Every structure is written in C-alpha cells, then in structure tokens.
C-alpha cells in the first residue's frame, strides 16, 4: 500500500472543494449577477440617473419636432433622467424667453433647434459658461456648442438634385425643365439645400430651372405656384420641394393638370407616415428622408456621450450627421416611416420628477 503524501492529499482536498464548491459559488453569483455587470451599470447610472435634459424646438405640433421630442423623452426616462420641454409656438421672442428661463434652471443638457443663426447664440454661450451642455439640432447658430445633430442640408439638396440630373439631364430624352419649391428664402435649411441643389444642377447644361419660388412651408402656396408653372411649361420634367407636407400641394397641382405620370416630384422631409402615404399614392416619385427618429436617437446619444465624458461644457465640438435615406414605392413602409406622433404635453418648470 502506497501512503499518500500530505501534499497530494492537500491538492486532492483542494480540487474536491473546488469541484464541489465551484457550482455553489456560481449559484451564489447567479443570484446577484456578475460584479462587472453591476459595476458597468452603476457607472452609467452615476453619470445619467437623475440628470435633466431639456428640449426646446421651434414649435411642437410639427411631425418633425414631435418625433424628436418623443424619442428623446423615451430614451431619457428609461435611464431615469428628467425630461423637460418648452413650446414657443414659432414665436422668436417667446423662444428667447423660454431659453433664458431654461438656462436659469440649470439643466444638465439643453437640446435646442435654432430658428436663425443669431437669435439664441448669446444665451447658448451663457448656458455653456455656467455648466450646461448645449446640443444644437437641425439648424445651428453662429456659436458652436458641444454638439450639433442634424442633416447636412447641402448634402440633402445635392442628393435630390443629382437624382434629378439622372432623371432629367443630358441623354434622358426629356425637356430638362425643373421647378424648385423652397420653404422660406431666409431659413438656414432652405438656403443650404438650395445651394446644394444648384451645385448639382449647374453641372448639367441640359437642366433648366424654370421656377425657383418659396412657398412659406404652405401646401396651398405650393399648389398655386405649381399650377401656374405646369401650365406655362407642360413639358416639365421634375419638381423639387424642400418639405414633404408643402410639396404635397405641388404634387396635387400636377395631378390636377393630369401630368403626375410625366413629372417626377421629389421632396425631402422627416419621413413620417404622411410622406410615405404620398409616395405610395404616386404623388412623390422619390422622397429623401432625414429620418427624424434617428435624429432623435443621435441627439440623445450626443447627450449621453457628453454626460459620461463629464468634460467642461464648451471645451469640444462634435458633429453628428444623419444619413438620409431614399424612399420610393419599394420601401415606403412602416419600417422606414414613423407614425405621426401626438404633440407632447409641455412639462411644468423645475419640478418634473423622474418616473421611476
């Protein structure tokens, strides 16, 4: 008989303990989770939970702004953050007042949509100086804050026009006549889009811009302008509009003239179900969506990054551009178009408590 050495015995005892004990330890761990998962989440919550994110669009009740608000609110509340929204109803004075009041409340992040490049820049600067991160959305001001989230309007215009050149340019066998329906001649979104459009259209000599008018974002104005244009130029090849809801009026005018199959109607917009309905009904030939839902998520991602980084507001500038997607009859479905959201209810000042 060989007698075991004490070392072997010790090792054997240890392995038995390990073999028996490991499942028990694992069992114990399964009941409370892995330490690393807890640590990661605790770190995340430390940076985000209880913080306040404020949203100041130009107006609510517009599908674009409502979708942003709805997405940011959902994302914020899931993380235990407070969501605050103000509605200036398209009034620049009210918007300035609302921003001043918001900045005074010292939220952690403000997401703001600028109606012009100068209106809010001083207040945004003050906000960052006092420690609030500022994310500018959709249209920027002259002051570059921590982050900008939005579509590249120049690129949107260029993409629209390049498709028009393919459809109506040299070698297409059409008249090459193009109509442009702008939103407002002085809105940044319009100015940058038209720059992109003309940049691409000017590259092809066969393209003639027969009408370049602003319809003030109103479908009825677009209808009246387009009715005259299609009547003067019955061989019109394409119509480009800078907002789907407005351009539906132009499409209707072309349909009333019986030319909806001949004229290619293009529009850019936020990609709500309204725009997709127009595509599916054959009113829009192609629609360029800057995916308001994705923009909302990008805005929240930017806010998350800023809060987790914890750098001093104003110390860096980041840009988050949304990828525009083409919608036509083949893909204008629920996967790519969001249902029109209900306008959010404005929250009371300073005492919005977290839901969970």
């Amino acid at each position, binding site marked *: 008989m060989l007698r075991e050495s004490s070392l072997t015995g010790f090792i054997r005892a240890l392995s038995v303990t390990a073999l028996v004990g490991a499942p028990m330890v694992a069992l114990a761990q399964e009941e409370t989770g892995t330490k690393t998962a807890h640590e990661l989440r605790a770190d995340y919550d430390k940076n985000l939970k209880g913080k306040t994110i404020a949203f100041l669009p130009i107006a609510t*009740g*517009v*599908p674009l702004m409502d979708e942003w608000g709805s997405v940011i609110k959902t994302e914020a509340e899931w993380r235990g953050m407070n969501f605050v929204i103000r509605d200036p109803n*398209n009034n620049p004075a009210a918007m300035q007042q609302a921003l001043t009041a918001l900045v005074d409340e010292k939220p952690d992040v403000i997401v703001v949509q600028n109606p012009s490049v100068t209106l809010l820049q001083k207040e945004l600067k003050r906000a960052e100086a006092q420690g609030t991160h500022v994310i500018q959305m959709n249209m920027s001001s002259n002051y570059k804050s921590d982050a900008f989230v939005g579509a590249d309007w120049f690129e949107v215009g260029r993409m629209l026009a390049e498709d028009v050149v393919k459809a109506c340019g040299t070698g297409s066998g059409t008249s090459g006549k193009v109509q442009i329906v702008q939103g407002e*001649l002085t809105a940044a979104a319009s100015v940058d889009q038209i720059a992109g459009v003309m940049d691409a259209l000017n590259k092809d000599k066969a393209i003639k811009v*027969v*009408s*370049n*008018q*602003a*319809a*003030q*974002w*109103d*479908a*009825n104005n677009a*209808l*009246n*302008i387009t*009715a*005259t*244009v299609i*009547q*003067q130029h019955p061989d019109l090849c394409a119509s480009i509009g800078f907002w789907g*809801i407005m351009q*539906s*009026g132009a499409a*209707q005018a072309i*349909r*009333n003239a019986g030319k909806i199959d001949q004229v290619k109607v293009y529009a850019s917009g936020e990609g709500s179900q*309204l725009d997709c*309905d127009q595509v599916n*009904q054959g009113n829009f030939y192609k629609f360029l969506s800057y995916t308001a839902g994705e923009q909302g998520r990008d805005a929240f991602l930017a806010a998350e990054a800023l809060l987790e980084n914890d750098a001093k507001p104003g110390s860096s500038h980041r840009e988050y551009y949304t990828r525009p997607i083409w919608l036509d009859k083949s893909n204008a479905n629920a996967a790519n178009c969001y249902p*029109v959201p*209900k*306008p959010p209810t404005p929250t009371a000042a300073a005492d919005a408590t977290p839901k969970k």
Partner: protein
Amino acid sequence: MTMQPDATAGRLEPWRLAVGGLSQEQIVAALTVVLLLGFSLGLPGFATTANLLDLLRSISKLGILGLGMGLIVISRGIDLSEVAMMAGSWCVALTAIPRGLPPFWAAVLALTICVAIGLFNGVMVAFIEAPALFVTLATAYVIYGAAFWFASAFVAYAPLDAPELVFAGRGMLLGIPMPILVFAAAASVMHAFLSWTSIGRFIYAQGDNPEAARLTGVALRPLTILEYVLVAALAWLAGLVWIGETGSMQMAIVQGSTIFDVILVVVLGGISLVGGRGGVFSVVAGCALIGTLLNAFTIMNVNSEVQNIIRGVVLLVAIILDNLLHPRDEETARQGD
C-alpha cells in the same frame, strides 16, 4: 357714386374732379385691365385661355373668403377668425373620416362647427357688445388650440375615395375648373342678397350709421348674428373648395398671412373699413388685381420677398387712393358718405 358738395368743393383740383366720379372699385378694375393688357403684350404665355383660367382659379378660394369678409366689413365689423374657422372645422372633419365618419357627414360636421363659431362670434359682438376685432382674434386662437386637441393633426389630407367631397375643388364643368364656378355662384348669390333684399339694405344701413339704423327700427342684434353666421358659412364653402383643390388642410395657415390677404382684397377693392360702402364687385375687382399680379410674378419667377413688398405697396396705394377720393371731414367721418 356721385360727388357730394362739401367744405372742400371750392378748391378741388382738376384731377380730383376727373377721377372723383369713379369709385375705388372702378379704378381698381381699370388698373387690372391695364395690367392684363400690359402683361399680355409683354409676357409670353400670359394671354392664353389656360393661363387666364388658372388665374381665375387661383383667386377663387381667396374670393369666397373675401365675400364673407366683405359682408362683415360693410356692416362695420370684422372677422379675424374666418381662416381659423375654415382650417379648424375641416381639419376636424378630415380626421374624422378615417375613423369611420362618411364624407357627407364629415362635411356636415364641418359646417356645424363653422356655424356654431359664427353664432358665438355674433352673440359676443351683438349682445355682449365686445369689439369685433378682439372677439374674433380671440376666437381664432381658441379654434387653433381646440382643433389641435380634437384633431391632433398638423395637416389633414382629403380622402382618396370621396369624389363628391373633392369635386368642388378638383372637378371641371364645361371645361371650367369648379372653384371658379363656385366663386361665381357665391358672388351672384351674395350680390343678389346685398342689392335686392331688404336685409341686404339693412346691412348697408348698419355699416353706414348703426345708430340711425337702430332708431329707424332695424333689428341690429339678430342682423349682426346673421352676418357672422354667413361669414362662417362662406368660410366652410372656401374650405370645401380648398380641400378638393389642395388635397389637404394645414392648421399652420391660421398663423400665416392668409387672413391679411383676405382683408387686402376687400380693402383694395373699395370696401372701406368704416363700413357702408362697396359690394361684391369690389371683392371681385380686388381679387382680380391681386391674382393678376401673383400670376404674372410666378411666370416672371419673381421671388416671394419682392412679391410681399409689392402686395404691401399696392395695399398702401389703395388706402391712400381711398382717402384722397373720399376725404373725411368732421361730418363724413361719423356718418358715412
């Protein structure tokens, strides 16, 4: 209108004698004819039947709204909620159709909403004696908010499968677009009402001198309510044409300049804001002038900022012309001309 001898008769300039015999609507009509001739000669593509029909079609909705506004201004009132009534009632109606309401009843719903608001406006102005300007301004705001609450839609689209509903806007009869025929019919009925019925004459009396009208036995309060209900009904009619033609109704037009365009064509055509003056022809003349300018500008591709400037200048010229033609003195300012 004839020349009235007044304190300034001794020192009237020759040009005032020449044009003073003409009313403002006649001057505006003459100006329109001059512009039409000018554009026909100078602008290729303007003087075609199709373009002129398009011109008439483009002013039809404005004209129907102008008939309503003209009626209320003749009676020395004003209705700033006309566009709000049109947009709010039709937005609610159009959002009810996908929820199961048949198109006919949706149209009736829109009319009911319009008439109810018209009744409210009328009662406020006639019985509470609140100033019409503020009552209708407040009503416009209330409609804007309430429509969003009930309809929850920034833009409501006309149904695709209701051809009767959209016929007034989109249809054609004898080669003429329906909006023009609807406007013509409404204008004829309004003209007959104002000129040949006693109620029409009472409306002029009310606008010219409400106190005298009341003293001679005209029932002013029911008359006022009737006027505001008529404006509301015309707003509904304009909306019916609007949804057929444009295919949608946007609530944003309530906050835009549409209501001021309506007041523009009314004042331009010679319906003075002091009341008691003008008629359907004024509205038609004002619409024709504005329509001619806008049509020509679109053909010339003039940008909308310049268009706005010119519209403003035209309105200023009209007001100054009105002042020069009908100089106000102590007597006429109070009692009308």
